[in-house]
């Protein structure tokens, strides 16, 4: 078993020759390295952080923001082996087929691949995130039937869908890729994992189509070089932008940015709380709606309300996943609404229970929601980033159409009722939280004028530079990205085995 190498121990001036350099040791970087373990390819995995959180390293993430209030750029990301999986909640759900489609009501939508392309990679991705057997919507209702029945929402626009949760073997936490897979990385003779190794520049050859070397440095002042045949940038949807834009000695607008797309279309999944109140006439909802449930085999599941593809098309809404949060108290108007409606429908509602509903929303792609370089520099001299965050009123009104439909379905099935709690921008913003899913900044498209990478995640115009991670998602889905980005990365691993053979 080899060790994780501390780059601070490398002599300055070291040159590492390798087949593949993976920049970033988060879920994408580690999944890719593991997919190539045991292959004939020599792989160097460069992680800026160490095994643990270090404020000095984390500070390299800090940057400026304009626009809508958003999490600071040094929050929501972690600069250590395992990246964001060191603090993720473990929520997993595969993206739906419609998420990949060009939807005429979603500007700039349409992936160059379909969900079918990713499906062969879901089982391996599911195993890596340790979310148990593949149950989700195929068997979620049946496998949770012992705990209660799903709400009858027959024939409508939303249905009960299912999350599964990552759980690290031998632990109660979701799988932290660094901790969980460090031994696998050490065991692989063809993988050289370097910690405290910050890539400071991607150097192109004179033809501008090939990466020739990576400049790397440690915070202790060591400098070294990696000379790879191929490079995969896997630093996350925000940091990838910084390296591409800052590596501008040959291409003045930055690498892959010939069409001014790098850093544009940034997105996250807003997860505002208490956006609606759901009343169940019959009393308490089945427990899987409001809390994670442990199945006998250890799988953890939770129910959510998802729109059908048909409803998304007819109502022209985006993806959303709405989840029961906690019991709620009705005010006097709420009580009169429930009494009046239940009496009119002839429904017994004396035991009715109310709950607050939270959600995760798919934002519409917006080129002006954008990450750019700022004038500030970090400890290694790299320009810091500036985020212009935006969220459109239309994103809210689309979601409320989905809530109206859920309310209609509850009435139609005589199961309950729904109150929409957010009507103004202020209503939304006071309840706003974010998923810290950094999406879209190096979007995938077959057309170089519409995307930074192609369907194989190769940067347009480049011969040996790829990008992994959710930054390549051209539209965003409401599903949490980790399972999906790992599947996409495993596909990249198979592609690299072919092209690098």
């Amino acid at each position, binding site marked *: 078993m080899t060790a994780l190498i501390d780059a601070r121990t490398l002599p300055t001036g070291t040159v590492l020759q390798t087949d593949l350099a993976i920049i970033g040791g988060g879920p994408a970087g580690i999944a890719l390295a593991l997919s190539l373990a045991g292959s004939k390819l020599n792989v160097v995995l460069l992680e800026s952080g160490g095994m643990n959180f270090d404020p000095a390293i984390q500070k390299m993430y800090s940057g400026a923001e304009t626009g809508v209030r958003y999490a600071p750029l040094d929050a929501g990301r972690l600069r250590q082996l395992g990246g964001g999986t060191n603090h993720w909640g473990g929520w997993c759900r595969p993206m739906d087929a419609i998420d990949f489609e060009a939807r005429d009501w979603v500007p700039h939508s349409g992936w160059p691949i379909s969900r079918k392309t990713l499906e062969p990679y879901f089982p391996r991705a599911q195993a890596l995130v340790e979310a148990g057997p593949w149950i989700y919507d195929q068997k979620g209702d049946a496998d949770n039937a012992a705990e209660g029945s799903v709400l009858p929402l027959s024939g409508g626009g939303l249905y009960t869908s299912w999350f599964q949760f990552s759980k690290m073997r031998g632990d109660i936490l979701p799988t932290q890729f660094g901790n969980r897979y460090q031994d696998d990385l050490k065991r692989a003779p063809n993988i050289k994992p370097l910690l405290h190794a910050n890539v400071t520049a991607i150097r192109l050859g004179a033809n501008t189509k090939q990466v020739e070397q990576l400049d790397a440095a440690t915070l202790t002042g060591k400098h070294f070089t990696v000379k790879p045949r191929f490079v995969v940038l896997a630093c996350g949807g925000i940091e990838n932008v910084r390296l591409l834009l800052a590596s501008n000695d040959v291409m003045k607008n930055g690498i892959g940015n010939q069409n001014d797309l790098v850093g544009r279309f940034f997105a996250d999944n807003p997860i505002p709380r208490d956006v609606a109140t759901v009343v169940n006439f019959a009393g308490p909802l089945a427990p899987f709606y409001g809390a994670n449930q442990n199945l006998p085999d250890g799988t953890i599941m939770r129910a959510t309300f998802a729109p059908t593809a048909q409803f998304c098309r007819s109502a022209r809404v985006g993806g959303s996943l709405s989840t029961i949060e906690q019991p709620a108290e009705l005010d006097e108007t709420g009580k009169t609404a429930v009494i*009046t409606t239940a009496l009119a429908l002839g429904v017994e509602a004396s035991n009715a229970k109310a709950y607050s509903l939270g959600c995760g929303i798919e934002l519409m792609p917006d080129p002006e929601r954008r990450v750019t370089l700022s004038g500030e520099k970090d400890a290694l001299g790299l320009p810091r980033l500036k985020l212009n965050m935006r969220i459109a009123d239309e994103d809210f009104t689309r979601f409320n159409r989905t809530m109206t439909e859920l309310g209609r379905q509850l009435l139609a099935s005589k199961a309950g009722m729904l109150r929409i709690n957010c009507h103004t921008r202020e209503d939304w913003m006071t309840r706003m939280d974010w998923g810290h899913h950094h999406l879209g900044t190096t979007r995938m498209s077959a057309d170089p004028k519409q995307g930074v990478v192609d369907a194989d995640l190769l940067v347009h115009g480049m011969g040996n530079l790829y990008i992994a991670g959710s930054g390549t998602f051209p539209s965003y889905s409401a599903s949490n990205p980790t399972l999906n980005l790992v599947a996409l990365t495993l596909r990249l691993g198979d592609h690299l085995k072919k092209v690098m053979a």
Partner: protein
Amino acid sequence: MKRRTVIAGVAAAGTAVAAGLYRFTDLFVKRYPPTPYDDLLVQLVDRRQAARLGTHVAGAPDAAHLAAQLRAALKPGSLGVTAEAEVAAGRTMEVDGWVLPQTIAQLSALASKV
């Protein structure tokens, strides 16, 4: 006093109390002052609750117009069926955020105006 007399007296007193409760309280049947819209409002099981809800119906027309709309849409004794049909057809309204069948919202608004 004979046992039969005592029983008759208790029964008479009980009848009187029940009659009083019926006449002067809502204990058995909700009683409301007469209105020109009772043919509609009679369909509400609890008019007082509906009236409270109805105060939150935004942009409702005056009672006469509401009644005209409702008489066109609502047959006697059909509130439940009409509401179900409206929900099936997607004819819902928001009242203070609550997604309601249109007729229930309108009938509640009418109740609040009389």
